[in-house]
């Protein structure tokens, strides 16, 4: 039984985990860096301890042991998919809220993940044969970090150096691999839960609206996918999870051909995802609670037929970036934060008036999640919610989202990953 949960993360996801852990009666402890000392997660956790860095395994394990925690929730990003971190936790007698180290190592190595996916019978994206454009990806990657599109041979070296530096900074591993770049595809992913022997899916999400491989808008379910393809996609994800004897919450990402709806396995994210709330909104299932129950060694209480998907949900990521100025990061102090509120609106944010957005970390300041009986209702609600939103002190992507939500292509649904090309200048 987990009683004292250490959270090795920051920002909105740290608050999100605190919320569920506290509902389950756990004491929450957070490791916070100097820059985050006065952040809301540090103030709202039951206990806060200083750590040097969110990427330091030693600092996190020392802090968790010092706090007499019995489990660590790694959130997303940082050390969340780091097999060495999970192992170090186990060595220190701490439950890691996530898959076992071997699974993390396998899925963290994107080349190995491809091999396992093929073994489980999933189709994969072809490699570099076939020429340019190519897509450089980080072997230790995830979240789009270290990903670069390369159109010409002469740009390859420079792009690889920059991608490698980004991968090194984000994951501590600068190794890269190359895939053929598929232009007209949709990014569709399937949420799975596994307890080590059986696995279930919680439906799919569409995350095709991206800029430089960073997701901006996500929704559940993916609009306009024929039911037979949707079913095939979901069972492929479950097949992979079961093949891996997967334990925990995970996401199987696919590239779906926008015309034929054929799909290719991209990668599996062995952690909670930023966009998990849209799945929670359509299933009514608290994914962090499921993670904690599984980490506690309990068998899945959910069976596939118990999971009913209802309505439609959309998430807009509000980043501290000047979207009119090439998405230039906009760190600083937030003077006013009026987030939308009301039924069928959920806001996951660690930013209130007076809070600092430090330049050290990523630019996400909050997520607005709306739901509706159908997609049209959700889109309309998102429009209203975005109109109500006021953030002062830093630039945000709110204005961009207001344009997306009224764009006829988005309103119609089912756009591919090229949606954003040229959008900001339009």
């Amino acid at each position: 039984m987990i009683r004292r949960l250490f959270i090795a993360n920051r920002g909105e996801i740290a608050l999100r985990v605190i919320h569920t852990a506290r509902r389950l009666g756990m004491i929450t402890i957070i490791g916070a860096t100097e820059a985050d000392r006065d952040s809301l997660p540090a103030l709202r956790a039951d206990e806060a301890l200083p750590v040097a860095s969110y990427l330091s395994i030693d600092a996190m394990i020392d802090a968790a042991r010092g706090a007499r925690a019995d489990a660590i929730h790694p959130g997303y990003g940082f050390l969340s998919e780091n097999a060495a971190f999970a192992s170090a936790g186990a060595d220190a007698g701490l439950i890691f809220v996530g898959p076992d180290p071997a699974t993390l190592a396998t899925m963290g190595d994107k080349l190995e993940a491809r091999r396992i996916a093929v073994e489980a019978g999933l189709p994969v994206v072809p490699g570099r044969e076939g020429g340019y454009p190519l897509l450089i990806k980080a072997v230790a990657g995830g979240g789009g970090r270290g990903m670069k599109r390369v159109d010409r041979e002469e740009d390859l070296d420079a792009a690889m150096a920059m991608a490698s530096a980004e991968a090194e900074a984000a994951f501590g591993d600068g190794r890269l691999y190359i895939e053929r770049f598929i232009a007209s595809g949709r990014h569709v992913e399937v949420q799975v839960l596994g307890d080590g022997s059986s696995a279930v899916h919680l439906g799919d999400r569409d995350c095709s609206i991206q800029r430089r491989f960073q997701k901006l808008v996500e929704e559940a379910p993916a609009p306009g996918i024929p039911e037979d393809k949707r079913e095939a996609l979901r069972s492929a994800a479950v097949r992979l999870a079961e093949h891996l004897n997967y334990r925990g919450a995970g996401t199987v990402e696919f590239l779906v051909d926008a015309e034929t709806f054929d799909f290719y396995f991209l990668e599996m994210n062995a952690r909670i995802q930023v966009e998990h709330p849209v799945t929670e909104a359509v299933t009514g299932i608290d994914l962090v609670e499921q993670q904690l129950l599984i980490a506690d060694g309990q068998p899945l209480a959910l069976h596939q037929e118990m999971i009913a998907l209802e309505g439609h949900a959309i998430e807009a990521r509000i980043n501290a970036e000047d979207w009119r100025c090439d998405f230039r990061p906009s760190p600083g102090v937030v003077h006013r934060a009026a987030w939308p509120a009301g039924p069928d609106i959920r806001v996951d944010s660690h930013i209130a008036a007076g809070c600092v957005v430090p330049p050290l970390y990523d630019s996400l300041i909050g997520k607005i999640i709306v739901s509706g009986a159908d997609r049209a209702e959700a889109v309309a609600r998102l429009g209203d919610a975005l109109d109500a939103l006021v953030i002062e002190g830093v630039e945000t992507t709110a204005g961009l989202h207001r344009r997306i939500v009224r764009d006829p292509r988005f309103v119609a649904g089912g756009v591919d990953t090229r949606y954003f090309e040229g959008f900001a200048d339009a």
Partner: protein
Amino acid sequence: MSADLPLTPEDVAEIVAILDGGAYDRLEVRTTRFTLRVAREGGGWTQEWEWSASEAPAAIAEAAPRVEVGDGLIAVRPPLPGTFYRAPQPGAPPFVEAGDTVGPDSVVAIIETMKLMNPVHAGAAGTIEAILVDNAAPVDGDALLMTIRP
């Protein structure tokens, strides 16, 4: 640090649902620890939180020393505030050393801001006169990183 969770998101949604049926446009809940302001905004509602302990945040990053650029030298400043790196990755040789010849488009450093690597270009042709910031130091947007002798 505090153990109590004052109001859950569900509580806030419920408050809005109640207000939405009535004539009030605004509700403020003020305690010693927080203020929550729920207000009608256009067709919808907003929630504004203020936390007593989240006031007066400290300076974000310590500024790198500002040095006057004289003697016909050209300043190299970062495109953004962030962390200054002299090499593309740990262990790799630096982009430039003092005495190196550069062109306007030469990459002389990287600034990492919010996990993105932004190249720093020399901006002018010449010779690197001095590198004024230590590797991995946080810098402001107007910090003087290097000087170039044209």
